[in-house]
C-alpha cells in the first residue's frame, strides 16, 4: 500500500527503461534474461530479413533462370545456389529469405485483425452482459474448442476457394487465423471488463453522467488491456504455424505470387523419400527459428509477469522487485526496474515473499 503512494511521487525512471520490452529486459535475471535476449535477437533477425529481403536474396522468389540459363531442379547446395534448388527449380535460399516477408505480413494482419475484433466483442459483451453476453460466450467457447487448423481450412475454402494470388492468399490465411484467435482475446477482455465494471471509478463515472461509450473506452478498455502484449506474442507464433500448416496442405499462395515456407515444405514431401534434404530442411528451420524466437520472447514476458514463475535476484538485490512487477508492459507503478529501491534511497527494504501477488496489494 505504502509503496503505491510513495512511488507515485517518485521521479519517473528514464523513458527508455519504461518501454515495454526494455523494462522486462532490465527486470529479468540469469537464465530468464538469456532466454529473452536470445528470443529478441532471433525475432530481430527475422524482422530485418523481412525488411531487407530484396537486398539479401540472391534471386527473386519466382525466378527460374538467370543469364546462365535455367537453374535446374533439385540442384544440391553449393556453387551459385548456396542452399540448392527446389523440385520446381527455384533457389531455396531466396525462397527462404522472401518467405519471411510473407510470414510477417500474415502474422501482423492476423494478430491486428483479431485484436480489434476480439477486443471490441469482449468489451461490449462484458460491459452490457445479458443474453448477448451469454450467446457470445457460448459461441466463442465452441470456436475455441475446435481444432484451429480445421477452422482455418474451412475459412480458407470460404475466402479463396483454395489457392490464390499474393494478397488474396495473404488475406485468406490472415483472416482464417483471425477467426481462430478472436475467442482468445474475447475471453481475456471480457473477463477483465466484467471485473473492472464493478470498480468504484466506473460507478463514479456513471454517476457523473458519462455515456456508455465513454466509460467503455476511457475507463474500462484502458485498464483491461494489460495482458494483451502476452497473448500478442504467443499468438504471433501460432499464426505462423497455422500459416505454414495451411500452406502445407495446399491452401498456400502460388509460388509465382510469393514465397511461403509451408508450401515449399509440401513440395519437398516427395524429395525426402529420395534423400533430397535441402528442399525441406531450410524452409522448415526458418519456421522453427522464427516461432522459437517469438515464443522465447512471449514466454519470458509471461514468466516475468507472473511472480510465481519469475526467477529472483539474490536476496540482497531483490528488495521491491516484486512490487515493480506488472503484467502491464511498461509497468503500472512507474517504478524502476529495481523497484522502489532504485527510485528512493531511503525506502525501507521490502523482502518479497515468494508468493507475493502484486495485485493483492490493491
Amino acid at each position, binding site marked *: 500500500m505504502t509503496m503505491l503512494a510513495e512511488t507515485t511521487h517518485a521521479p519517473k525512471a528514464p523513458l527508455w527503461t519504461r518501454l515495454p520490452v526494455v523494462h522486462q529486459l532490465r527486470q529479468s535475471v540469469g537464465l530468464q534474461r538469456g532466454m529473452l535476449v536470445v528470443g529478441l535477437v532471433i525475432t530481430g533477425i527475422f524482422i530485418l530479413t523481412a525488411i531487407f529481403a530484396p537486398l539479401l536474396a540472391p534471386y527473386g522468389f519466382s525466378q527460374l533462370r538467370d543469364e546462365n540459363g535455367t537453374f535446374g531442379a533439385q540442384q544440391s547446395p553449393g556453387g551459385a545456389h548456396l542452399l540448392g534448388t527446389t523440385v520446381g527449380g527455384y533457389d531455396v535460399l531466396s525462397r527462404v529469405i522472401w518467405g519471411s516477408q510473407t510470414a510477417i505480413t500474415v502474422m501482423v494482419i492476423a494478430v491486428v485483425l483479431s485484436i480489434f475484433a476480439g477486443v471490441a466483442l469482449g468489451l461490449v459483451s462484458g460491459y452490457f452482459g445479458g443474453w448477448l453476453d451469454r450467446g457470445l460466450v457460448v*459461441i466463442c467457447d465452441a470456436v475455441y474448442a*475446435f481444432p484451429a487448423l480445421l477452422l482455418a481450412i474451412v475459412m480458407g475454402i470460404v475466402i479463396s476457394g483454395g489457392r490464390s494470388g499474393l494478397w488474396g492468399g495473404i488475406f485468406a490465411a490472415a483472416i482464417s487465423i483471425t477467426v481462430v484467435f478472436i475467442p482468445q482475446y474475447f475471453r481475456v477482455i471480457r473477463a477483465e471488463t466484467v471485473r473492472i465494471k464493478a470498480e468504484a471509478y466506473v460507478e463514479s463515472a456513471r454517476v457523473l453522467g458519462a455515456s456508455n461509450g465513454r466509460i467503455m473506452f476511457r475507463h474500462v478498455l484502458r485498464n483491461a488491456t494489460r495482458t494483451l502484449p502476452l497473448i500478442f506474442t504467443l499468438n504471433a507464433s501460432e499464426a505462423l504455424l497455422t500459416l505454414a500448416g495451411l500452406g502445407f496442405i495446399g491452401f498456400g499462395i502460388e509460388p509465382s505470387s510469393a514465397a511461403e515456407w509451408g508450401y515449399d515444405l509440401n513440395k519437398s514431401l516427395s524429395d525426402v523419400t529420395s534423400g533430397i534434404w535441402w528442399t525441406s530442411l531450410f524452409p522448415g528451420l526458418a*519456421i522453427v527459428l522464427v516461432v522459437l524466437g517469438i*515464443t522465447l520472447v512471449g514466454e519470458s514476458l509471461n514468466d516475468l509477469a507472473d511472480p*510465481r514463475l519469475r526467477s529472483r535476484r539474490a536476496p540482497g538485490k531483490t528488495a521491491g522487485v516484486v512490487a515493480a512487477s506488472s503484467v502491464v508492459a511498461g509497468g503500472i507503478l512507474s517504478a524502476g526496474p529495481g523497484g522502489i529501491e532504485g527510485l528512493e534511497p531511503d525506502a525501507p527494504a521490502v523482502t518479497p515473499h515468494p508468493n507475493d501477488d502484486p495485485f493483492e496489494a490493491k
Partner: protein
Amino acid sequence: MTTVAMKPPVPAAGRISKKKSSPGGGIGRYLLIRFLLIFPTIFILVSMVFWLMRTTGDPITAALGGKLGPDQLAVLIHDAGYDRPIIIQYFEYLGQVFTGNFGTTISTNRPVSEVLFTYGSATAELVFYALIVAFIVGIPLGMVAAYWRDKAPDAFLRVFAILCYATPVFFAGLLLKLVFAVWLKALPVAGRATVGSELQMQFLPDKTGIYLIDSIKTGDPAVLGDVLLHAVLPALALGLLTAGVFLRLVRTNVIGTLGTDYVNAARSRGVNEFRLVSKHAYRPALIPIITVIGLQVALLLGGAVLTETTFEWKGLGFMLIEFIKARDFVAVQGIVALLAVIVALSNFIVDIIAALIDPRVRY
C-alpha cells in the same frame, strides 16, 4: 502417503461447492448440466461450418463445375435438393446430422458416415499412439524440470519444450522420415502397414479398422511388428508436439505444489526426494493437466491432419485433404462436423474426470 497430500483440501472444497450449488447439487447435477452443454457446442460448430461452406455456393457446382455443362449441373443440383431455400436445407442438414447421416460424397459417391467410420479408426489409432508418446516423454521430463528449477536441466528442458512447440508437426515428420527411414533405413517411410500385412488383415472376419487390434487378431507376430514399426515415426512426430505442452504444464504446476507446506512437511519427515516430486507434488498438479488434455484433443486432431498427410497415414485427415483437393465439400463438411462432435465429447469426458477428482470444479 498420498492421502496425506490429497486429503486436506477436499473437505473444505466440498463445503464450498455445496454452498454454491442449489439444493440437490452434486455430481449428478453437474453431470447433467455438463452433458446438456455439449449440444449447443455441437450445434454452433455444425451450423457455423454449414453456413460458411454454403457461402461458397452449392457443393455440386464446386465439385463438378468445370466438368459438366450447365444443364447437367442443374439436373444434379435439383436432384440433390440444393435448389431449395437454404434455410430448409439447413434444418434438413441438422436433422440428418442428429441421426448420424452426413450425406453422400460427391467425388466417390459413398455415404460420408461410411468414410468417417473407415478412416476414423486410423486417426483414433494415431492419436492414441501420440498421446502415449506425449505422456511418456512429457510428464517425467516436466517433473525433472520443476525439481531442478532454473538449473541446467530446467533450461535445457524448457528449450526442448519450446522446440517441440515451435517445430511444425509436418517438419518434425519430414526430419524423422529423412533420418530414420531414408538415411538409416531403420523404419518404414510411410503408410500404416506393408501391403502383405494389410492383405492378411483384410480377410479377418470381424476387422475393426484399428490395425493394432487387427494385427493381434491375425496371430502373426510379424504383422504386429510391421504395424508397430509403421506407427513409430508418425506417433513420435505428433506425440512430441503434445509432449512439449505436457512438459511445460507439469513443470509449472509441480513448481506450484513443491512450494506448499505439506511438501515441506513431508520432506521434514524424511520422504525421499524422488517420492516427493513423483507423488506428493505431482498428484495435486494432475487436475490442471487433465483439463488441458481436453484442449489437447483439438490440437492433436489438427496435428493429425498434418501428420497423416506427411506419412500417408490413411485416416480422416489424409482423406480430408484428398476431399479438399477434389473440392468435395459435402465430405469436408461431414469430416469437420464429426471432428466437432469428437472434440465436444472429449471435452465433456475430461470435465467429468476433473470433477470426479476435484470437487471444487463442480457447479
